[in-house]
């Protein structure tokens, strides 16, 4: 298999150009899909039998939750790639992803909390899924804190990479906690095939998942550009780009 595409991504100037070109497309697609999906979910989709309108927060809550897990996993993979193949761009991608993931985790916790009040009567419960999502937030903050505390950038990259990889253990716990323990949080709703929801409720949700992923892609590419500029500020390609 021809691996040149992989190694091209390892080049900072190439990634900078790639990010510059594609970020607007990701962003535009994300906004478009979000608008359509929100219209579908907030206006077109019918009322839920039990929760009436309250369930509609799922259109923000569920994608946020998925993204918070997906971004951490992406971060850990990027960190591992950076550690094994010693790619600076991979480390930059991991560093750029962390705050995005942290914010998605905050969004998950807040939207979940707002939904909890009408559903369970409480803003918070110490059940496995909520607790492990909270731990995920602490993992993100710990990752960012470790990066900030180590002066030498190469050392900070490597140390935070090890931390990210070790923390991956938490991800399956969050995902499967609702299956393993009796939990207050509902188990996963089947969306396709033998679906638990009608299609008019499902398609906006699926579209929101995609929209949020594209949104992450757009923001990641923007932050990656800034991260690459900062890391390589002494290099000649940066001077050319900025002039």
């Amino acid at each position, binding site marked *: 298999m021809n691996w040149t595409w992989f190694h091209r991504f390892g080049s900072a100037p190439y990634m900078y150009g790639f990010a510059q070109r594609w970020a607007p497309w990701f962003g535009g697609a994300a906004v478009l899909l979000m608008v359509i999906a929100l219209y579908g979910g907030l206006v077109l989709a019918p009322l839920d039998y039990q929760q009436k309108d309250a369930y509609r927060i799922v259109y923000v809550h569920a994608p946020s939750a998925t993204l918070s897990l997906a971004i951490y996993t992406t971060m850990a993979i990027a960190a591992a790639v950076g550690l094994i193949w010693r790619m600076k761009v991979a480390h930059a991608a991991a560093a750029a992803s962390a705050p995005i993931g942290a914010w998605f985790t905050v969004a998950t916790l807040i939207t979940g909390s707002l939904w909890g009040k009408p559903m369970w009567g409480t803003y918070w419960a110490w059940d496995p899924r909520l607790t492990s999502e909270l731990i995920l937030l602490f993992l993100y903050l710990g990752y960012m804190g470790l990066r900030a505390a180590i002066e*030498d950038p190469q050392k900070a990259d490597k140390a935070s990479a090890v931390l990210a990889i070790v923390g991956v253990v938490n991800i399956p716990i969050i995902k499967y906690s609702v299956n393993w323990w009796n939990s207050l949080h509902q188990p996963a709703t089947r969306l396709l095939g033998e679906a638990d929801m009608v299609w008019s409720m499902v398609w906006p949700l699926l579209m929101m998942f995609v929209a949020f992923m594209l949104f992450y892609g757009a923001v990641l590419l923007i932050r990656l550009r800034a991260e690459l500029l900062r890391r390589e*500020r*002494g290099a000649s390609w940066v001077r050319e780009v900025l002039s």
Partner: protein
Amino acid sequence: MLRVQGVHLWRGDRHVLRNVTFDATPGRCVLLTGRNGAGKTTLLRAIAGLLEPEEGQVTWRGVATRATRDVFHAELAYLGHEPPLKGDLSGRENLRFSVGIRRAVTTAEIDAALARTGAEPFASLAVRLLSAGQRRRIALAGVVLANAALWLLDEPTTNLDAEGQQLVADLIAEQLGRSGLVVAAVHHPLPLPAELVDELTVGTA
């Protein structure tokens, strides 16, 4: 036997090592000279494998040291700025540990090495009670005991009196006589015969 090729290393933003290339051969000592902050310690640490260069490689006996790290380390004795000794243990106990984790060592060997470096009189005292020069003598005994083919020494004569500096030169000469290799970072020239020494200046002019 030791080959450093095209090593580049950055510490943060500083390009500390620029395209460092040299060979070290048995029986000859490579002396690294240069100003403070030129990168002599960084180079020694990079050769030892404590730091990873961004570019270039270090090969030992034709094999990259990164690939055979433990095998390389078994043949390496590294002495940094501060002698690595536990303050609450005596010199003898320190050596029994630091050499013992590498190879089986007898009390007789330890005593002989301590006598060679003039550390015998204070070898049973807790190291925290010793002066900097005394600690260095104990650490030098450790280097001798390692039976290592390659010595990496960072400012080995620090805190030593004139007699101590001659001792270091003698130990290096003995190591070279055994077909060993020595790479040492120094500030002042060592009293070694010129035909055994290769000098390398580290850092930009």
